[in-house]
């Protein structure tokens, strides 16, 4: 029993240490990735994604209306991903 309890205490210490270490690594890794991408991947992707988020042919209000309509109409299953001028 005592053997078992000392074992369990060991598990508690190793366990909590590991959990804290891993979540500390999560913070480190996350920050690292954010900094690296901020530095190296920002511009190219901003350029690429910019035109996608624009709906050149339709005013913002109209787009919002269409999106809302579609969401109501399709109960959330249909989504407007692109609106193009024909």
């Amino acid at each position: 029993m005592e053997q078992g309890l000392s074992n369990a205490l060991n598990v508690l210490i190793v366990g909590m240490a590991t959990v804290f270490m891993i979540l500390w690594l999560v913070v480190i890794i996350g920050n690292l990735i954010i900094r690296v991408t901020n530095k190296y991947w920002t511009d190219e992707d901003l350029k690429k994604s910019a035109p996608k988020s624009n709906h050149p042919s339709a005013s913002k209000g109209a787009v919002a209306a269409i999106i809302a309509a579609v969401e109501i109409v399709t109960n959330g299953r249909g989504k407007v991903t692109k609106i193009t001028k024909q």
Partner: protein
Amino acid sequence: MDIFSKLFEMTAFGIVTYKTVIMWAIAFLLLFLGIKKKYEPLLLVPIGFGVLLANFPGADMGIVAAENIELPDGHYKNLFEIAHDYGILNYLYYALIKTGFLPPIIFMGVGALTDFGPMLRNLKLAFFGAAAQIGIFSVLIVSMLLGFTINEAASLGIIGGADGPTAIYTTIILAPHLLGPIAIAAYSYMALVPVIIPLVANLLMTKKEFKINMKQMDKLYPPKHQIKNIKTVKIVFPIVLGTVVAIFVPSSVPLLGMLLFGNLVKEIGSSTSRLAEAANGPIMNTATIFLGLSVGATMTSEVFLSPKTLGIVVGGFIAFAISIAGGIVAVKVYNLFAKKKINPLVGATGLSAVPMASRVANEVALKHDSNNHILQYCMASNISGVIGSAVAAGVLISLIGG
């Protein structure tokens, strides 16, 4: 006369005992909680129905103990023989549950539904997902004092991780005979988070703490850097995290690896959206049905009506409460030293039980100050709590089960 005796033999009247009736009552209770009270209905309804199926005497739907599939030469019956000898629920159980297959599969679906965004935007808060695992390990010790073996105690403690698939996966490996009660306790307490979190928070937090406004703190002490390319970060994160965690806690890979894979195919976007949709749709739903029914079917009266079940119910609650307290206390300690204070409710959600814990914590905060929206901050520690308990499970499996 002969005909009537045949008719009677065919029925199950001869073998219904008072224990059978108790098990039915438990099944009805679970169904009631799932249907009427909406306690985790996706799991408790199949589990409840599985309990019912398992306790129809004569239907042979209950899961048989592992001894029954062991052969004298050290081998095991094959799945075809298991189906033939013990029916389809044992077939499902020994093919999909006892092999440890479905929990990682469900985790893949969970991953494909998870958004690490809130956590990435408030990375420091992820740290509190660690403190909220303390319930797991302290209940491990407490329950050993109460007479559980270390394997059983670890499975009991993992309830405090507040994560269904993790609890089931750990129990399958460490103490499969307790699978039914532990799964039910885990999902029931997850459903009771709206009661348990306010309870513990009111015990440990001051009024002032309830009103700590995270957004104001952000204004006062703005974060150092913004994320300029969230899409790339979200794609790279699961890959790197998976690798690092795998090096440190290899035994957590089946769970965390599948979670991060599911998340990866989701974040990649349209080019793998077929896979993400399969993972969080048909695959996860099918896995949930089969998991629920067969976990429920492990609860035959012999297994369930034992003192240990009571211990699990009590111990599970304690594990939950200590985990929440751990998260809250960790924030309070942090606040002693930091200028930028954190609302201790953010620590409470380190528990897991995503996203309900965050919603509950947010409502509690709003009750004390109707301008205090802390949902996004809670989500950060809430999601990190999933990682935390999967890591804790890996440690338990590695140190105790290995």
